[in-house]
């Protein structure tokens, strides 16, 4: 039975200026199985603080130099969760109330009734156990909400996670649809990481960012001398993804000719390099993604129906963030944790007001946009809590100024402003807008935006 006790040893820090008090309290607590360290002043207690994870502090109220309440204040600056019991021989209602208001867990008048202190410390041990259990359960729960780097507690998303885990075991082609920033590539990577192909490469191709001929050579590779400038043999992404996963992002943006070529590859499971004659078999899994409405594109004859059916073996539609607002707090915690590590910060959480602001936004750029807002908030946060003032969203006032304009006009104007602010650096501008590069290229094309004094840099 004694073994069970040792697991839950609680550390009590006795700060008392009378040696006999320290010795007797220490001895008495040690008999009860606690690990006790006694120091004679508040200053010494503060020095010892970083040495170990203290669970409880018993502090004498009257000490020379720093008194018990001052010490408690100091301790709570760095360890807000520390439980402090104030002890005093000269009790007044005022000091007791002050101590409790300042955050003391309890207040004892010396000498104590042995039963009182036993009971209080037992209560603390139980509390400590519950806190530990709660932390453990929260972590366990979080695991259930996770698929690799994706996190959600939305029912639809959890179904998607389940489907992804199942699909991962097969080699079926997957088509992921969803708005920009919903995490299509993350899901594709998760499927790859959960699959038996996890040790083979995951190759990603952004179809919208390349011209037709470049994309063809990018996908299929080319033989030496296939065209002017082809000075050496170049293996394409299809070849590089051998045994692994080929992720074709923005598949809705490829030309009809390439659609034809890709269809042939999917049907015959083999291809030729540009300018080559050798047939190369492929055994990689293909995952395609798009933010376009492919059904409408088929209707408008911009996308081949037969390719669509080839790709759409397993179809996954990721809902936009505004349709799963319950994920916002979860994602916020996830991003804060991530940026804490990346930036070496110690943000502990986010204020209720800040969460309210985030919950009421529509997030056109989805989780990616939310991530950018949190990244900025973590950078600018002064304390260890993200507050309303750290959150920067497009303000309602600036939107109101554009009331007479259409949404498209505002979007176009805003993108132009951001591009100019970033000297047309696409990566930085896309980051600021909370969209990916490919989407930005598409918007530049769509709105026919041009760099003042030259063309858009490609």
């Amino acid at each position: 039975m004694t073994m069970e006790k040792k697991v839950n040893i609680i550390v009590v820090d006795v700060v008392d200026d009378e040696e006999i008090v320290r010795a007797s309290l220490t001895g008495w607590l040690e008999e009860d199985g606690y690990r006790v360290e006694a120091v004679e002043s508040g200053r010494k207690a503060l020095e010892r603080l970083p040495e170990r994870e203290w669970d409880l502090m018993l502090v004498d109220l009257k000490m020379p130099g720093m008194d018990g309440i001052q010490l408690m204040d100091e301790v709570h600056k760095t360890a807000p969760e520390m439980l402090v019991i104030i002890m005093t021989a000269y009790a007044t209602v005022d000091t007791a109330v002050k101590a409790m208001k300042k955050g003391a867990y309890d207040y004892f008048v010396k000498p104590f009734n042995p039963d009182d202190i036993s009971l209080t410390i037992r209560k603390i041990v139980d509390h400590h156990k519950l806190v530990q259990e709660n932390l453990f359960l929260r972590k366990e729960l979080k695991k259930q909400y996770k698929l690799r780097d994706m996190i959600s507690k939305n029912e639809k998303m959890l179904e998607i996670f389940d489907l992804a885990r199942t699909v991962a075991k097969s080699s079926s082609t997957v088509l992921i649809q969803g708005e920009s920033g919903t995490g299509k590539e993350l899901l594709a990577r998760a499927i790859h990481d959960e699959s038996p192909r996890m040790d083979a490469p995951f190759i990603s191709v952004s179809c919208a960012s390349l011209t037709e001929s470049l994309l063809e050579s990018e996908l299929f590779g080319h033989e030496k001398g296939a065209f002017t400038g082809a000075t050496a043999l170049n293996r394409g992404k299809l070849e590089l993804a051998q045994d692994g996963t080929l992720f074709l992002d923005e598949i809705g943006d490829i030309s009809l000719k390439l659609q034809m070529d890709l269809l042939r590859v999917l049907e015959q499971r083999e291809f030729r390099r540009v300018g080559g004659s050798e047939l190369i078999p492929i055994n990689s899994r293909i995952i395609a993604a798009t933010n376009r409405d492919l059904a409408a594109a088929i209707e408008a004859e911009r996308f081949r129906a037969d390719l669509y059916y080839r790709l759409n073996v397993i179809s996954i539609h990721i809902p936009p963030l505004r349709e799963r607002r319950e994920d916002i707090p979860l994602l916020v915690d996830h991003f804060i944790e991530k940026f804490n590590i990346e930036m070496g910060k110690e943000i502990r959480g986010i204020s209720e007001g800040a969460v309210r602001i985030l919950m009421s936004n529509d997030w056109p750029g989805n989780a990616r946009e939310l991530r950018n807002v949190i990244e900025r908030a973590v950078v600018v946060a002064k304390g260890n809590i993200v507050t309303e003032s750290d959150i920067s969203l497009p303000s309602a006032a600036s939107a109101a100024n554009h009331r007479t304009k259409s949404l498209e006009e505002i979007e176009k104007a805003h993108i132009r402003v951001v591009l100019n602010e970033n000297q047309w650096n696409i990566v930085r501008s896309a980051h600021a807008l909370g969209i990916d590069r490919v989407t930005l290229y598409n918007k530049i094309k769509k709105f026919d935006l041009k760099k003042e004094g030259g063309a858009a840099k490609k």
Partner: protein
Amino acid sequence: MDHGILEWLREEMGDCLMATVRILPPIPVPPESFESRRNQHYSTKILKVMLGDVPQDALKLLGVTDKDLCIPILTYVFGEAQVGGTAAVVSLARLRQEHYWLTPDRSLLLERLRKECLHELGHTFGLVHCPSRDCVMYLSNTVVDVDTRGRDFCRGCQTVVASNTATERRG
């Protein structure tokens, strides 16, 4: 101190710990341990004095006193021991029924004393309080607790005592 009680205790402790137990000549309770404001004696100060007087061949030294004991931060204690050390002291004062305005009961007093002495000696063998109510090492803050807890070590605590006794004897 009633010599009959000490003689009885010597036999009981000898049986419980399977050890030779000797009664030493009485020593006065150190005057510096007296706390006049509380009319009690600080047990920690008594332990300090006892430690200066441990016979060379003794493994443990148990003091028994009629004085009411306390420590500065607690209103009273039944006894005190050094965890994993040599000395322990037990008071009869609060084990007597008379202390609670009840009719004296010698056999109850002896039973309580046996439990308290075994409990404090258990601490000197390195034991801390045991979560089992059936074990003599269960924490007792009141005389009711003393009466309701077990009169011997549980199996776990017994093992620790046996193993530590062997180690200390070898040392």
